[in-house]
């Protein structure tokens, strides 16, 4: 008898498992957007916020519905969520961060569900589009590739004598290495040399930053999740060594960065909304929609830190920068 009860319990569990997430109701003219978020993180959350607010600003409110699922940084969970979206037949998947985009790409193969990604640095290397100009499949989106030349130029403008810049990147994150390689390729044009160190944890970041601080003229923080989350570690070590920290994204400006001429993930979210709207409401195929990149950057400079480090801000820079204390 007990055996039967237990078996029944197991079967019940199985059934509960199979009926997960009630199928999204098919309402007239309401498009369902499945949001696959790899992990919550201020920058990644901003890409979602920016997308939703822009869709509403474009006058589409009421015409779409958002279902948000967070994989908590776990690839198998991202895979499962993406496949769940496909089996629920959502109208579009908005995938945020590389692994989420790859899971969405894989899950939608053989279906006509479009995918719009965001916060993927190199979509071609991630294997989800054939090229940025002609994605060629059901996937397109917004790349968060930072305009690196602007950053290097800014470093040179503020510190004409700078020779070496220090960079830290997460060995476990594909976006990090890509950016380091790009900066290494660009740096000679600006008369700069890159000292890069790969790390795997916040603790390693501290010792690596300490080590590099002695031999470089400035730090440049890329849009690598580990580095961005631990900006304070870098600014702390840099302050001890009396050198500034530049960054590609203004989210951590309050943590002691000198200057940023960079991305706003909120704006990247707005750009994604344009793609989403074209696909859902104008019937354009993703294969014809170019992968977009940051169109505008915003310059922010911390005046107090500049003064402490005896860095003069030229009038030209002052004219276009937002100065903070």
């Amino acid at each position, binding site marked *: 008898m007990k055996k039967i009860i237990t078996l029944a319990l197991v079967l019940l569990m199985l059934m509960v498992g199979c009926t997960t997430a009630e199928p999204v109701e098919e309402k007239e003219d309401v498009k369902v957007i499945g949001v696959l978020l790899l992990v919550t993180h201020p920058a990644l959350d901003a890409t979602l916020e920016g997308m939703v607010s822009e869709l509403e600003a474009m006058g589409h409110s009421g015409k779409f519905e958002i279902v948000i699922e967070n994989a908590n*940084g776990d690839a*198998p969970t991202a895979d499962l969520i993406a496949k769940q979206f496909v089996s629920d037949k959502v109208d579009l998947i908005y995938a945020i961060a590389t692994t989420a985009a790859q899971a969405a790409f894989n899950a939608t193969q053989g279906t006509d569900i479009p995918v719009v990604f965001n916060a993927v640095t190199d979509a071609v290397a991630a294997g989800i589009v054939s090229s940025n100009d002609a994605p060629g499949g059901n996937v397109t989106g917004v790349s968060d590739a930072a305009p690196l030349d602007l950053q290097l130029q800014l470093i040179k403008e503020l510190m004409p004598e700078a020779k070496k810049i220090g960079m830290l990147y997460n060995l476990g994150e594909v976006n990090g290495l890509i950016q380091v390689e790009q900066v290494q390729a660009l740096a000679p044009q600006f008369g700069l040399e890159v000292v890069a160190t790969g790390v795997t944890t916040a603790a390693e970041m501290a010792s690596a930053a300490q080590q590099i601080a002695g031999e470089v003229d400035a730090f440049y923080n890329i849009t690598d999740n580990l580095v961005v989350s631990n900006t304070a570690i870098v600014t702390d070590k840099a302050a001890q060594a009396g050198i500034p920290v530049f960054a590609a994204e203004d989210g951590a400006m309050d943590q002691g960065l000198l200057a940023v001429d960079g991305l706003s993930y909120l704006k990247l979210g707005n750009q994604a909304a344009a793609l989403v709207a074209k696909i859902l409401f104008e019937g354009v195929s993703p294969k014809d929609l170019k992968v977009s990149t940051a169109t505008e950057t915003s310059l922010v400079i911390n005046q107090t830190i500049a003064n402490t480090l005896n860095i003069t801000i030229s009038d030209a820079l002052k004219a276009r920068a937002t100065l903070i204390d």
Partner: protein
Amino acid sequence: MLSFGIEVLNQGLAYGVLAIAVTLTYKILDFPDLSVDGSFPLGSVIAAVVLLKWGSIPLALLLAFIGGLGAGLLTGFLHVKLKISNLLSGILVMTGLYSINLMIADNRSNLPIFNVKTMFTVGAWVEKLPLDLQPWVTKFYSTLILLIVIVLLKLVMDWFLETKLGFLLRITGDNPQLVIALGEDIGKTKILGLMLSNGIAAFSGAIAMQMFRFYDISLGSGIVVVGLASVVLGTSVLSFMKSWKITTLVVLGSILYRLSISVALALKLPPSNLKLITAIIFILALVLNNKELRPKFLKGWDKHA
């Protein structure tokens, strides 16, 4: 909804291979082996690189397995020959493998294999089948392949555990004194068990990677807990199935584990709590498994079966 159930089943089966690997060390050898956290992604990255370079699926699986054997050999060597404690040996190998895995992938932490054939790619032969059969074959192909792999693996393991060598492995965990009394080398048996376990774990990594169709170094993080949770779930929740072999139980445990994760997702539990939920399921399963702590109303389980 059916197709989502299939996906849960597929993941459960792919990670069921891992559960068999973990059973070998934790349950049979009584060795808490953490090196699996490194050997699982090792298998993934080897398979990804082989598929990208040569496109051969058998070679990818074989080399992944061999890579895992090597990892296990290293853990065993550290523990048996260099007398480093079992936990630490595993941690050292796991840590070292992180760098090795990066090196194998040419310092990339993520490799997509969307454009190559995998073991789950349905071949052109499907078009020769009757038309009404084709969508079904395509839909269940992955599950079928996984079932074949796991049943074969299970049968081989069951057979192996009955051989003299398998018997030695079992008593190395249960009664090490007996192994010495039999005049056998306990160190060698441990090394062998670790090699086999890590080999199978790497094999599992190779399979899971082909299912996701990309390798990411994060595939390995916390994988020991996933494997262990499957083992504990399988052997406790299903403990009433006394006549079933442990290999069957842990694979079912793996499916149960994936199910509980998807239930947690469906219930919209905050994902930040998922790890806590895993830990709670784990503790419950352990309590169920302990005869003295088992709640009264469940006391009859053992006797009945």
